[in-house]
């Protein structure tokens, strides 16, 4: 029996709108040659587009498009909001899958020859849709304002900007300011959530209307076309099956391969290789082959040629023949094109900038550090593949191995823990001495705080030594002759003090001590402060200079017995004693009183507003930073007990970390370690102090967040742990698969029973 009420409503609506007739005709479309799974690609695109729109809108409930909050709002959405991981994951992977399926859809249409007369317009609108998709994939990754997105946007806008004639105009429109920042983020946002969705909706509609005019082109074989299939329910059923598989795939990818937290965007970062989103890698790679004046050929020429080739296809290949086996030339050109694009994308994918490669110095060590395989283990090979054949210089090694953390090469006394290497030229070290100092510093001074760089290859040590030897003293060290003093007299006059000060500077004392009247980061005390406080006598000073360990067995101060003769020793002591009456030099404006308070109280001040605790860092990035800035004191993996590592005194282990600092909740854990990295802490046992990386801006907040994520990972805490998942991602996936399998099983048994009983 029919349902009369439903029919009445149907008729009432149809009389006034024609909608029922419209949908009836829409659903009863005939498909020549019958329904096929290969025809589901278009519907798969529609399904994905719908998912993108809904998950996109849903993310707007939390996302804030400002450079201050974009990253933290998205992190909150992904880690703290129930199913945020799923909704973000579907959107992230949906975009990637959409691009791939749109490509396959176009490829199928190309191979089947379905773009031919009378369906040229469907093809042309399709090309427009691919371009809109490309814009979506260009603007979307910028929105999280993380490292990857920031650089993808930077490179993308740069490419757009280098197009001849219209480039600078396009760039200023996209960027909205003189550099990448808040305006650029807002413009990417408006494009991504307002303009492009409207455009894609309109053109999808036109695509469908134009398609329905002549419908499915069907098989090229006339005989096969005789069989007629129907859109509803046969083809729709196949479409829905494919959609279901896509849905399950998206849940799988979201649960098992969440998009990385690449850390907050950081323009100061040099570790990352700026790359566009993966869809544009082929273009990025083409640009590398076209240097200098040829570049416009790549930025404007390549995309233009590709679009024109696509657009002219139905008019160039205008014969009615659809059988791909009879269109050998066109088909092989097309497949070659696809192959080239895929190959260029692959090259772009594996490319690492020389800077990034040299940062990683020793690939195997990096692998150990991160406890995880890096994307490309064999960096040397990657460099070759990307045609990067260059030599690393000693200077680059010096900068990237962490030497600059303790040494300067300015020729001026600094507040770093090691000597300035230009000043140290005054010591006239031999080639072999420098070599030994790098590989095994303890061979010269068993109490040195310098870490051994024994993992470096012979070649690299040689490069470093050559670099250090090539340094030129900024001002030649001229030792004045000692003032003429009558034998036996105990002249403490101004001339002797001046001579003593010159020796103090020339003999390396300034490498560890300051004479300024306020504390410094150097390992030794400031001598105005120390001498005023303790008022040591001549004998004490003499012993301290000749055998420092006599006063403090843990002292790291070297003996000067072999460096100063008796008269020089005398002059230095006279100079030192004169410091008891010397006035302190004014403290530089940048140094706050807190530095002083901190140094005396031993407790990091917590006044600073800056903090990285709200930023989800990237632990792999953090591992590289750790390798550069922390490993020399904290040891590989933050474990000071690593065999072969010379553990400086008083430096705490980070792996495992103090149980009072540890917390299983990543947010609390980060809060605990953040203050040490931001403000530093003095070493109470005579070893090196923990520098104030945050206060001194030696590291950006984004970098500190990365380091924190790495330190957490060393202690088994995942910074990207989902705090409020709804249902745990993996469990959610298993649940879906299980329930669906169960439903399928029951339906199958039911079907089988029906057949058996012949109902």
């Amino acid at each position, binding site marked *: 029996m029919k349902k009369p009420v439903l029919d009445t409503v149907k008729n009432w609506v149809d009389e006034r709108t024609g909608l029922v007739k419209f949908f009836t*005709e829409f659903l009863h479309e*005939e498909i020549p040659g019958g329904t096929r799974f290969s025809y589901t690609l278009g519907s798969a695109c529609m399904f994905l587009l719908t998912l993108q729109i809904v998950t996109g809108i849903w993310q707007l409930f939390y996302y804030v498009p400002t450079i201050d909050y974009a990253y*933290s709002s998205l992190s909150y959405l992904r880690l703290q909001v*129930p*199913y*945020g991981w799923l909704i973000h994951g579907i959107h992230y992977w949906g975009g990637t899958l959409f691009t791939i399926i749109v490509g396959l859809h176009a490829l199928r249409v190309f191979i089947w020859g379905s773009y031919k007369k009378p369906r040229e317009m469907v093809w042309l609108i399709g090309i427009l849709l691919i371009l809109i998709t490309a814009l979506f994939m260009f603007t979307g990754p910028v929105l999280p304002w993380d490292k990857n997105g920031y650089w993808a946007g930077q490179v993308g806008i740069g490419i757009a900007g280098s197009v001849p004639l219209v480039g600078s105009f396009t760039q200023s429109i996209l960027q909205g300011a003189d550099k990448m920042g808040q305006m650029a983020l807002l413009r990417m946002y408006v494009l991504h959530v307002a303009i492009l969705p409207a455009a894609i909706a309109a053109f999808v509609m036109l695509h469908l209307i134009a398609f329905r005019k002549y419908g499915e082109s069907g098989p090229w074989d006339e005989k096969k076309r005789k069989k007629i299939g129907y859109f509803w329910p046969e083809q*729709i*059923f196949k479409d829905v099956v494919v959609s279901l598989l896509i*849905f399950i795939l998206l849940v799988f990818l979201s649960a098992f391969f969440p998009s990385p937290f690449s850390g907050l965007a950081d323009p100061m970062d040099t570790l990352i290789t700026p790359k566009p989103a993966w869809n544009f890698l082929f273009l990025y790679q083409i640009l590398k082959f076209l240097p200098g004046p040829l570049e416009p050929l790549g930025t404007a020429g390549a995309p233009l040629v590709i679009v024109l080739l696509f657009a002219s296809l139905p008019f160039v290949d205008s014969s009615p023949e659809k059988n791909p086996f009879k269109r050998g030339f066109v088909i092989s050109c097309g497949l070659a094109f696809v192959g080239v694009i895929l190959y260029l994308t692959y090259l772009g994918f594996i490319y690492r900038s020389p800077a990034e490669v040299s940062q990683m110095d020793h690939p195997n060590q990096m692998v150990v550090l991160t406890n995880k395989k890096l994307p490309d283990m064999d960096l040397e090979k990657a460099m070759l593949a990307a045609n990067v054949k260059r030599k690393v210089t000693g200077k680059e090694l010096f900068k990237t191995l962490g030497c600059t953390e303790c040494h300067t090469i300015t020729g001026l006394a600094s507040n770093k823990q090691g000597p300035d290497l230009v000043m140290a030229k005054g010591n006239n070290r031999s080639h072999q001495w420098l070599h030994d100092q790098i590989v095994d510093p303890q061979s010269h001074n068993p109490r040195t705080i310098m870490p051994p760089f024994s993992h470096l290859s012979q070649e690299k040590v040689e490069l470093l030594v050559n670099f250090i030897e090539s340094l030129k003293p900024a001002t030649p060290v001229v030792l004045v002759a000692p003032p003429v003093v009558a034998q036996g007299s105990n002249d403490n006059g101004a001339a002797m003090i001046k001579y003593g000060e010159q020796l103090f500077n020339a003999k390396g004392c300034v490498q560890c001590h300051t004479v300024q009247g306020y504390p410094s980061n150097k390992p030794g005390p400031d001598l105005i402060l120390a001498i005023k406080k303790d008022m040591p006598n001549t004998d004490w000073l003499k012993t301290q200079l000749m055998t420092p360990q006599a006063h403090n067995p843990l002292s790291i101060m070297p003996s000067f017995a072999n460096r100063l003769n008796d008269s020089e020793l005398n002059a230095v002591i006279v100079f030192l004693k004169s410091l008891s009456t010397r006035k302190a030099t004014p403290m530089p404006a940048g140094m706050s009183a807190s530095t002083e308070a901190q140094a005396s109280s031993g407790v990091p001040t917590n006044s600073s507003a800056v903090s990285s605790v709200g930023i989800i860092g990237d632990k792999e990035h953090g591992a590289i930073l750790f390798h550069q800035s922390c490993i020399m004191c904290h040891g590989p993996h933050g474990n000071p007990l690593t065999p072969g590592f010379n553990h400086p005194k008083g430096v705490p282990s980070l792996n495992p970390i103090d149980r009072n600092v540890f917390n299983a909740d990543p947010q609390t854990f980060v809060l605990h370690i953040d203050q040490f990295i931001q403000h530093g802490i003095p070493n109470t046992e005579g070893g090196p102090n923990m520098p104030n990386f945050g206060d001194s801006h030696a590291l950006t907040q984004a970098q500190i967040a990365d380091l924190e994520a790495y330190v957490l990972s060393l202690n088994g805490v995942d910074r990207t742990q989902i705090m409020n998942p709804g249902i745990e991602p993996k469990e959610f996936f298993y649940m879906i698969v299980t329930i669906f399998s169960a439903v399928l099983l029951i339906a199958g048994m039911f079907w089988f029973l029906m057949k058996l009983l012949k109902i």
Partner: protein
Amino acid sequence: MTNHTPTPRSQEPEDIQKRNFIKGATAAILGFITLFLTIPFVSFLIPSSNEGKNKKFVKVPNFPSLTIGAPTKMTFQDVDVQAFITSNIVYDIWVIKHAPDKATVYSPLCPHLNCRYTFVDSEFKCPCHGSVFNENGKCIGGPSPRPLDTLAYKIEGGELFVQWDLFKAGIPEKVEV
């Protein structure tokens, strides 16, 4: 849409049965996808419970210098953390100091529909719908279903500390939001 007349479909019972099965399967799959999207999409919008998180006493400045017996509007500032944004919020309250260690603290919101009331002629009057309360908080006129809402407080060392709270408007019982 298509120009030629539609080819009539096979009406064999077996074909109809097959078509109906396919229709059912299609609906089932779509229902399955919809169900497993609806649960996350709805949960996504339900705010996480804040219970117990903001239960803290915050100091209200200037209490020691307050005149005894006079209802006074006072303000205090607190840090409010909502999702990923931390901000400073200023709260207002009505305080009647009875003694240096005794006071009454009213929420500034009328229990009727949460308008902010004022103190005129020894009475609390709400400008929105004319509810009137005496100094004891009792409703003596207008539509308010219950007396003024008091807030929890404590006085330590002569200083006032108040715990901010919100209550459901328009019902006779005082229920936390």
